[in-house]
């Protein structure tokens, strides 16, 4: 694993500033999200991604127009990185009518097909075969598009991982599988569940290209996924990318993350992807004031979006019958309150 403190030269500085902006937005978004939940303004659960922004932004920004992405319940960052609007993303988490999914999906199922964020999936592993299917369609339609599929380290132990990677490889599908290895699956450290050192080596079981990167170095993530996407487009098949990163918060709303060894979080905070990228940009000549402006703009955008989201309406009661089927008739038939009598 190489570490590049210097930003890769190939990417324009303006673009790299935009990465920073995106990472900041996600970070602020997650902080506000956390507040919404701890204040009890939103029910259910949420899985925050502070600390993993480098992977999500670095990977998604390696995509071209029309490319797509699927991710997990810990998907706020990935969906925002694809360009989902902040206000409607907040609104979905708050269960509003103007939420990305009309309030039907919630925090774990953020989806904005219009920006290529095809879905967030909450059953571990389930979207890995779906991503293969997306890639199959691109191949079938000869669209030249690729799709990214994000998932966690813990997900590499579930059956669907195996089936999906095998299928993607044998059919040489244009998909980039990105493991966000944040060292834990819920409360279990990787070593307790997974008998190998490097998850990326599982690619060998499928004859698949592989690359392991420092996930907190956005430049390296971007470079790795750019290469993987190019290979996929060229018909060379899928790549398994393992991005080493860390989640700053607990697994979910209710988790204080007491299982972490002392000092671990602090060490990773030193390697915060935002911090690292800011340093890289400074080395590239961007001054502190400009960096602060990016941060402040992001913060303002997030807070404004949150205000707008709060003002949005709750979904209309009857809307709960919509979208079961493409043709509405069938669902409507059952709209009479579920009484058989």
């Amino acid at each position, binding site marked *: 694993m190489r570490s590049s403190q210097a930003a890769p030269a190939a990417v324009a500085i303006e673009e790299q500033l935009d990465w920073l902006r995106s990472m900041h937005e996600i970070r602020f978004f997650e902080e506000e999200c956390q507040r919404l939940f701890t204040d009890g303004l939103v029910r259910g659960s949420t899985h925050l991604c502070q600390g993993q922004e480098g992977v999500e932004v670095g990977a998604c920004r390696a995509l071209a127009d029309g490319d797509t992405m699927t991710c997990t319940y810990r998907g706020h960052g990935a969906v925002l990185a694809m360009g989902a609007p902040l206000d409607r993303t907040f609104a979905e988490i708050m269960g509003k009518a103007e939420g990305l999914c009309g309030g039907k999906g919630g925090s774990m199922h953020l989806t904005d097909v219009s920006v290529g964020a095809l879905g967030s999936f909450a059953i571990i592993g389930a979207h890995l075969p779906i991503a293969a299917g997306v890639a199959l369609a691109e191949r079938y339609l000869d669209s030249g598009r690729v799709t990214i599929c994000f998932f966690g380290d813990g997900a590499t132990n579930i059956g669907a991982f195996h089936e999906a990677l095998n*299928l993607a490889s044998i059919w040489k599908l244009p998909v980039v599988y990105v493991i966000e290895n944040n060292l834990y699956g819920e409360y279990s450290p990787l070593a307790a569940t997974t008998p190998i050192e490097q998850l990326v080596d599982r690619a060998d079981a499928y004859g698949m290209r592989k690359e392991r990167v420092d996930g907190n170095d956005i430049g390296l993530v971007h470079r790795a996924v750019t290469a993987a996407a190019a290979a996929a487009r060229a018909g060379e098949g899928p790549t398994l990318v393992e991005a080493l990163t860390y989640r700053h918060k607990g697994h979910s709303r209710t988790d204080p993350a007491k299982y972490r060894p002392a000092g671990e979080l602090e060490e990773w905070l030193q390697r915060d992807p935002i911090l690292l990228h800011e340093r890289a940009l400074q080395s590239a000549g961007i001054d502190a004031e400009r960096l602060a402006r990016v941060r402040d703009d992001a913060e303002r955008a997030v807070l404004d979006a949150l205000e707008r989201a709060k003002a949005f309406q709750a979904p209309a009661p009857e809307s709960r019958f919509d979208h079961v089927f493409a043709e509405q008739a069938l669902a409507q038939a059952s709209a009479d309150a579920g009484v058989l009598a």
Partner: protein
Amino acid sequence: MSQVTYRQAITRGMADAMEADERVFLLGEDVGAAGGAFKVSDGLFERFGPQRVRDTPISEQAIVGAAIGAAIRGLRPMAEIMFADFAGVCFDGIANELAKYRYMTGGQVTLPVTIRLGNGAGAGFGAQHSQSCENWFLNVPGLKIVVPATPADAYGLMRAAVADDDPVLFFEHKHLYNARGELDDAPEPVAIGQALVVRPGDDVTIVATQAMRLQAEQAAETLAQDGISAEVIDPRTVLPLDVATVMESVGRTRRVVVAQESPPDGSWGASLVARICAEGFEWLDAPPLLLSADETPVPYADDLERLWMPDAERIVAATRRTVEF
């Protein structure tokens, strides 16, 4: 009009669907050159090539997932799950992803996926290859489930399933593959959600699907000789059930027998009985009778398997009891 087998009707249904729309393709284990474990896709590989008739590894989760992913990008996959019982290994893909994906995203994705599954008992395949697995999915809103019994229905429902913008589980009864029936030269789709009155009658309504429908027709014939006029209805779709057609019949006959090739609890038959009672309790002159298979796994031995499920004779007896109630 020609005589074809149930198997041939499905094959033709798939072929016509593929001919009509380039986005339609088939994937599954050995569906290609081998023509499928039940030879239902025989000839499709030769005709449509490896891009559109795709052999997969033994990976049902991947098959269903790939179908979902391809569908949301505009294709119209037909996925084969060989024995319906194998739906157990991809149940999550069907029940938690395919059925809910559109709803969870507020209608952002459309899922024109057809999943074909070889259903049912009667061939000595034992407990893990003989179930009526449509019953596993009844409590999962978001799916449509069809269960054709004849070549014409199989063809028509296949065309309807592939043309449908929503997920359809298409259950093919293994024991019917060689059954023959008429098929129009230019056959039409059969609307999903529409029951068929197979045989009109006045005294009692018998509802049955797939292999049991043929038994029910036989039973009606026998009953007719005794002067009992049984109306036979094949729902053809079990999710959603066409309760209206059944109620129209029961409103006249005031007696109903539902015969099915599965245990009673959690079955489409029990669901139908509950709906009949809800909508037409006052019309009924006898308790609705649900004739089911034993509440055991499907036994292997010939004799045991035959006894395990209802047949024409038992339908006759049950119907008599209902008529004489």
